[in-house]
């Protein structure tokens, strides 16, 4: 496993990746708002371009402020390295195409974010990369879906929005037995609650827009390489083991071993596609990550109190959170999330789709919008927004019912969130009477 720091998570969140700069002693990480970097000599420039040395060339590929964020997240997750991207979706796209080429195949969980499902089902298909969707904790189904040309297994550590927790050790074992890595979107969990690499996962992806940043002010993504997958032994990923012509036939696996995957992303996707994160965005996200562990404790506590309150309300038909025994993956959550399985919860109210709409429209404090993981409490009706592009059958398999209300519990005083929800339920009551 790729343990990358001997410091505690709170210390990593504040310090990792940066030491006060020797020129001015700036305690906070500076924003290196520059496109490019001066080469000491022509030979120095040539060496950087040929990956003979580490360093910065152009901010599409690397940037010092972004690198601090990358190193900090890699340390939090226990990875060998990380690459930040413009968004969580671009992080997923880059991770997929670094491992897959035309003619390849992916096995994915059905319970995933709507845009990720569209990427896998439709966008990648245009490039002849096929995907089979399975109930990810069904071990027989997972094994049965893996084909000769399968290059990775994908899931979310906590599925969006059905809140099904993926059994990461079991999934990893099946994938590894078949010589393929596991890519996990851990956005809902953050390394504060669960470090997938410690459970056998090979690559972790986040939308850092969400809890990692926490303030809802910047869009970004990250890919973390666990560093332990033996690309040479599996010999299923020529992008990492075969000579790469643009860099004089380099073999990333032979040359860089535990950092081969990240080096390939840097050399290919960041260079040729350019889904880079801006230094200002990295700076904003660094401010959020400094308090990640404190915030996550509060997020989880508020989610727990909200869940318990909702369970007692007559107009609430059902409540779902992985920490509730009714959740089908509760036992997995207990094992993988000892400090609480996140701050996302779902519930349905009387009146079905209309009841849900009435509840959302009556809220004042909580915001109805298409985001999660803000410090503020957010609510959404997925059937009419994030998952609206899915047909009924696909929506059902993704764990979404028409009445489902998705809540991203914030860190406000929980009494105030409950007060707002009381207003929402009054509106539901007026509708169903």
């Amino acid at each position, binding site marked *: *496993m*790729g*343990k*990358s*720091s*001997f*410091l505690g998570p709170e210390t*990593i969140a504040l*310090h*990792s*990746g*940066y*030491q006060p700069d020797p020129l001015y002693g700036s305690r906070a990480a500076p924003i290196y708002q520059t496109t490019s970097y001066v080469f000491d000599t022509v030979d120095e420039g040539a*060496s950087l371009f*040929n*990956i*003979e*040395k*580490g*360093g*910065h060339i152009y901010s599409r590929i*690397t*940037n*010092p402020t*972004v*690198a601090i964020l*990358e*190193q*900090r997240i*890699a*340390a939090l997750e*226990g*990875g*060998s*390295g*990380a*690459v*930040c991207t413009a968004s969580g979706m671009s992080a997923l796209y880059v991770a997929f195409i670094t491992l897959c080429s035309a003619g390849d195949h992916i096995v994915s969980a059905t319970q995933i974010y709507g845009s990720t499902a569209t990427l896998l089902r439709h966008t990648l298909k245009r490039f002849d990369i096929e995907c089979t969707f399975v109930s990810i904790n069904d071990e027989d189904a997972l094994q049965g879906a893996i084909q000769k040309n399968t290059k990775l297994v994908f899931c979310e550590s906590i599925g969006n929005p059905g809140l099904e927790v993926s059994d990461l050790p079991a999934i990893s074992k099946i994938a590894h037995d078949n010589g393929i890595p596991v890519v996990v979107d851990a956005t809902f969990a953050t390394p504060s609650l669960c470090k997938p690499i410690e459970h056998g996962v090979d690559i972790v992806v986040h939308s850092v827009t969400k809890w990692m940043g926490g303030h809802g002010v910047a869009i970004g993504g990250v890919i973390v390489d666990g*560093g*332990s997958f033996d690309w*040479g032994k599996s010999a299923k990923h020529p992008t990492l083991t075969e000579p790469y012509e643009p*860099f*004089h*036939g*380099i073999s990333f696996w*032979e*040359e*860089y*071993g*535990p*950092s081969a995957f*990240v080096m390939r992303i*840097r050399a290919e996707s960041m260079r040729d596609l350019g889904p880079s994160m801006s230094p200002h965005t990295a700076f904003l996200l660094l401010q959020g990550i400094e308090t990640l562990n404190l915030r996550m404790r509060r997020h989880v506590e508020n989610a727990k109190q909200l869940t318990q309150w909702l369970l007692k309300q007559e107009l609430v038909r059902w409540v779902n959170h992985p920490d509730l025994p009714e959740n089908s993956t509760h036992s997995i959550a207990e094992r993988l999330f000892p400090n609480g399985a996140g701050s996302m919860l779902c519930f349905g109210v009387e009146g079905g789709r209309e009841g849900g709409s009435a509840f959302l429209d009556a809220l004042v404090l909580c915001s109805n919008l298409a985001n999660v993981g803000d410090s503020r409490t957010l609510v959404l009706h997925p059937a009419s927004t994030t998952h609206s592009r899915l047909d009924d059958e696909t929506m059902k398999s993704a764990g979404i019912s028409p009445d489902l209300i998705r809540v991203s519990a914030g860190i406000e005083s929980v009494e105030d969130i409950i007060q707002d929800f009381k207003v929402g339920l009054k509106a539901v009551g007026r509708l169903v009477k």
Partner: protein
Amino acid sequence: MIIKVNKYKTFIATGGQVFDPKKPTVVFVPGSGLDHRCWALQSRWFAFHGYSVFAPDFPGHSLSEGDPLVSIEEMGIWLVEALDVAGVDSIHLVGHSMGFLIALESAVLLKGRLKTLTAVASATSIPVNEYLITTAESSTSSAADLMLRWGFGSHAQLGVSAVPGMQPIAIGRQIMSDNPLATDLKACHNYSAGKSIAERVDCPSNVILADEDKMTPSKFGMELASILNAKVSKIKNSGHMLPMESPKRTLDSIKSFITEHTN
């Protein structure tokens, strides 16, 4: 490239270029539990600047077959055999930590073929704590953890990396966990001929030290430099794992010395 040494397939990293034994060849020898991957950010520069690179995985390490060798003397002989198989004639030896002890043993066998000798974070002997050896015998990854705590300097411990986005401690841990660390540590601990061999070295020598090196404190490196009458450079804010921790400054020091002594 793959060559056969004593019947076993042996992986030699060549810095991304086709190996040409006629060129002056920089031979990178890794320390305990390490392999060619620890030299990734030094070897490639030489391969693209007029040199051949020969960075072997010793038997039983990383991509090489065979049983791990149990003494520094055996490793020194093996390295010369590997260089003979590859047909190398003009040799610049660079060794990190235990790798330098191996380089010393090879140096006396190579005689006139050896052009320069470089020690990176090393000394004439490197005794190893018994607890570390015992730990390595029962758990390679636990021993690797101990070494990484001591081996990396304060900046690296705080997650600062010379290569954007990377975490050298995690990379080092992964490499060490894959290799026969206990065997290497015992070989390193048992080696005592370093001082007498160093006194016999007559080629130009270079000693690169780290100011935060807790595993081979720089005072021992200075003693080595005195015996070799070597050029000395000390890298600040870095620990024992110089090739991975301070790759650019380590490369700068190696290349300025070797290029100065290349015809």
